[in-house]
């Protein structure tokens, strides 16, 4: 009787042995892909904001484009959208005040979306802004979109019950982080928040107490999407948002599948960046990256016109890159999501230790642990390379794999004992295990402390949190240093809990003053200043150890075209997608 399983075993051995027999040869193929840097600008010519968008070469009408994603989109309600997938998917059905024209190679132009231009700074002091609404923009029911519906959408974002979503515009209008105390939406549904007005149906006006030169960027977030008060269903609106874009949600199988079909009232002549090629878009949730990759490699049925949102799993990368036919169906771009070994400056007060950490880090090992070039790219700067005005520098040059000797020298024989907190999932477990080994070689003693993934942000944002180091990340809301450096390193934003500071708890008054100075410059002049400031912070304070930026490496079916990696958020963008006929 034991013969049967034994035979099976021998067979299995043979099969596996054969599969494993191709040799992976050592080659010196260290091809370096260029960093994608945003050459972004704000459109000054109103023509840039006019539709229709330039045709995508080879595009055809018809078919269904499927987007595969592991987990569902947390919110569909434009006022609550704040995830990368939500931001890109909502382009299909939610038009905003402004949006980006993006060539997928880093060249982005901020243009008016519902507005004719990306905003007018009326008094050139960044305090009063006016937006003129385009003619011919309509909801999916055919009713016209005016400034009143956009203003209502913004007023609605003050409602605390509508969790999620950015809070920039609310805080700027209320001039306080406690914006709900200045305007209680639930009690005043017919009025508008302070500073927001609609002088006429074609005009939307913002008046701020303080200058906010970044408003055109902030207005590109879908929180400025329009909604008629009569159609507001409160928290239920999340399930069935009213479309103002080229597609409308026709079937919502929450947590499983979303189906979008053409919105016939959308007029391409009003839209500078969207198209309406496929008959439908389907977002399908539940498949993990391995499954997504396998399905798209198989390229059968509906999957032939599908794209993987989460990208090629690192375990399958070698299969994809070594097959030219598959490689031709991939897209690879670094994203603006940057990961740092964030140092708790409250606890690690010795600059030498922070600098030693920077010398010791083995970024090459970090990248390999994560799965190689197609998953991550090492960075040494605070701003990701995709930021406008990014300056490449290395404050603590130590080679690709770090310089433990230099670190030991700085430590001067001491052995700092540091606790490293990280989000508890398999990726971070592996990454932190690598970091521990890496740093202990340079004379540190590292204790690993997993923190439940769902509480990680809340816990590290507590000022008196007990950890010395944590793996932090930041994806900027727009490609300007203004949404990175002051947000993460302005010490005045530190609070006891829910601190908006990037949890490094750096608080240097010299820096805080610098932030104010650069923020008050016209947006066009800020770029290089942020680059300089970036280097200054790293050289003088070393508040974090920059590690890497995510790389988006994804694959799509053979029948789908026009997919690109969004330059702003680094995620799969579908507005140009079409199905090859």
């Amino acid at each position: 009787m034991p013969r049967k399983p034994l035979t099976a075993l021998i067979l299995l051995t043979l099969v596996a042995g054969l599969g494993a027999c191709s040799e992976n040869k050592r080659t010196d193929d260290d091809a370096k892909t260029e960093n994608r840097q945003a050459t972004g600008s704000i459109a000054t010519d109103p023509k840039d904001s006019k539709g229709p968008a330039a045709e995508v070469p080879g595009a055809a009408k018809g078919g269904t484009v499927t987007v595969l994603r592991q987990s569902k989109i947390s919110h569909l309600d434009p006022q609550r959208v704040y995830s990368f997938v939500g931001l890109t998917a909502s382009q299909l059905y939610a038009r905003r005040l402004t949006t980006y024209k993006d060539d997928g190679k880093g060249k982005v132009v901020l243009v008016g979306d519902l507005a004719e231009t990306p905003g007018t700074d009326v008094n050139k002091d960044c305090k009063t802004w006016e937006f003129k609404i385009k003619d011919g923009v309509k909801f999916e029911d055919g009713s016209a979109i005016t400034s009143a519906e956009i203003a209502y959408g913004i007023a609605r974002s003050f409602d605390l019950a509508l969790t999620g979503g950015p809070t920039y515009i609310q805080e700027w209008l209320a001039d306080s982080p406690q914006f709900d105390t200045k305007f209680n939406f639930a009690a005043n549904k017919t009025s508008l928040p302070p500073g927001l007005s609609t002088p006429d149906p074609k005009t939307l006006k913002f008046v701020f107490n303080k200058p906010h030169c970044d408003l055109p960027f902030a207005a590109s977030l879908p929180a400025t999407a329009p909604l008629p008060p009569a159609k507001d269903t409160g928290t239920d609106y999340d399930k069935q948002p009213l479309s103002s874009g080229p597609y409308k949600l026709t079937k919502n199988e929450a947590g499983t599948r979303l189906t979008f079909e053409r919105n016939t009232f959308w007029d391409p002549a009003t839209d500078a960046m969207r198209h309406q090629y496929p008959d439908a878009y389907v977002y399908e949730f539940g498949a993990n990256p391995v499954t997504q990759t396998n399905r798209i490699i198989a390229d059968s049925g509906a999957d032939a016109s599908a794209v993987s949102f989460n990208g090629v799993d690192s375990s399958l990368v070698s299969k994809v890159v070594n097959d030219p036919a598959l490689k031709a169906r991939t897209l690879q771009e670094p994203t603006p999501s940057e990961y740092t070994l964030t140092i708790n400056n409250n606890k690690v007060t010795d600059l030498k230790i922070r600098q030693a950490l920077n010398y010791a880090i083995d970024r090459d090992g970090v990248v390999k642990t994560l799965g190689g070039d197609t998953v991550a790219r090492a960075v040494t700067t605070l701003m990701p390379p995709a930021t406008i005005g990014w300056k490449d520098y290395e404050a603590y040059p130590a080679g690709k794999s770090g310089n433990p000797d230099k670190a030991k020298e700085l430590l001067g024989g001491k052995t700092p004992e540091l606790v490293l907190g990280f989000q508890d999932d398999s990726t971070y477990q592996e990454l932190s295990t690598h970091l521990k080994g890496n740093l202990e070689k340079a004379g540190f003693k590292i204790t690993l402390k997993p923190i439940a993934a769902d509480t990680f942000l809340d816990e590290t944002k507590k000022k008196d949190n007990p950890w010395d180091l944590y793996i932090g990340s930041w994806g900027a809301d727009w490609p300007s240093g203004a949404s990175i450096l002051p947000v993460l390193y302005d010490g005045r934003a530190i609070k006891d809990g829910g601190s908006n500071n990037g949890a490094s708890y750096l608080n240097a008054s010299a820096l805080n003053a610098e932030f104010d100075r650069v923020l008050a410059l016209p947006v066009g002049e800020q770029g290089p200043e942020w680059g300089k400031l970036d280097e200054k912070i790293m050289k003088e304070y070393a508040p974090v150890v920059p590690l890497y930026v995510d790389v988006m490496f994804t694959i799509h079916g053979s029948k789908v075209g026009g997919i690109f990696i969004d330059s702003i958020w680094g995620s799969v963008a579908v507005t140009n997608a079409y199905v090859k006929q």
Partner: protein
Amino acid sequence: MSVVPLDAERVEQDEPPARDDEAIAARSLGQAVWRRLRRDRTALVSGIVSALLIVVALAAPLIELGYGIDPQDSFKDDLDRYGMPYGVAGGVSGTHWFGIEPGLGRDLFIQMVYGMRTSLGIAFAAAIVTTTLGVLTGIVSGYLGGWVDGIINWITDVALALPFLIFTLALIRPLELAFYGPREAVPGWFRVIVLIGLFAAFGWTATARLVRGQVLSLREREFIEAARATGARTSRILFKELLPNLWAPIIVVFSLSIPAYITSEAALSFLGIGMLEPTPDFGRTIFRSLNYLQTDPAYVFFPGVTIFVLVLAFNLFGDAVRDALDPKSMTR
């Protein structure tokens, strides 16, 4: 998913061993079983394989000494820029017998040796604890009957109705927070203890049901009646008279629950609630390797075949023990 080894319930259906010569059977049972096991070729092979694997697990530090590589050693230079090992079959070589793990760059062989120690340790400990708990409650509930039986039965019902995975997922972290400060490292063995505890909390019910059933029919037998009539204390009847007659089913449940716990522990890793890095763990290695089915088959092959052989050997051996213990099989 049930944590309870399904096979255990099969034993429940067996009628209690009918023995006419109780006294003789009790004494010579061990020898008889041993004789029968030795004659059974399947038992012999599976027994040797199981023992071998246990020895490997126990001798992990010695193997490390001879092998010369620590489970935490990382060989990142042997990985290409996609994190895949250079060389044939996932980097198999004289130094790395089973190759190295893609991405992490650790030696697979020594990872597996230590991982097996973790997995077998958890499985054995969980099996011992659940069996003990189950036998105790089963005997008490079956022999005493009445309201004690009613209450224990009801508690068993409740425990059976609680979903094991959800509770495990929800309780693991609070337990760690309760015992360790936010800056203290939670040692690998703590998670081991927690997993064993959770397995025990949910896994004792099957054994308890089984033992209770056996006791129910045994307690009406003459030899128990006789012991009662001579005025023996309850504890004496329970442990001196009843227990020796229960060894056969208990051993079978025990040996069959070990492979069940090995696979359960692997399943926990599959859901990301098993053992954490850097503690080597068999289940986690297997789960991680599955993604590499196409790109590094050797990485799937070594741990995959090992867990298959491990579970198969324990299952076969458990079966053989059951056959050997079953008096009816003597006639066959």
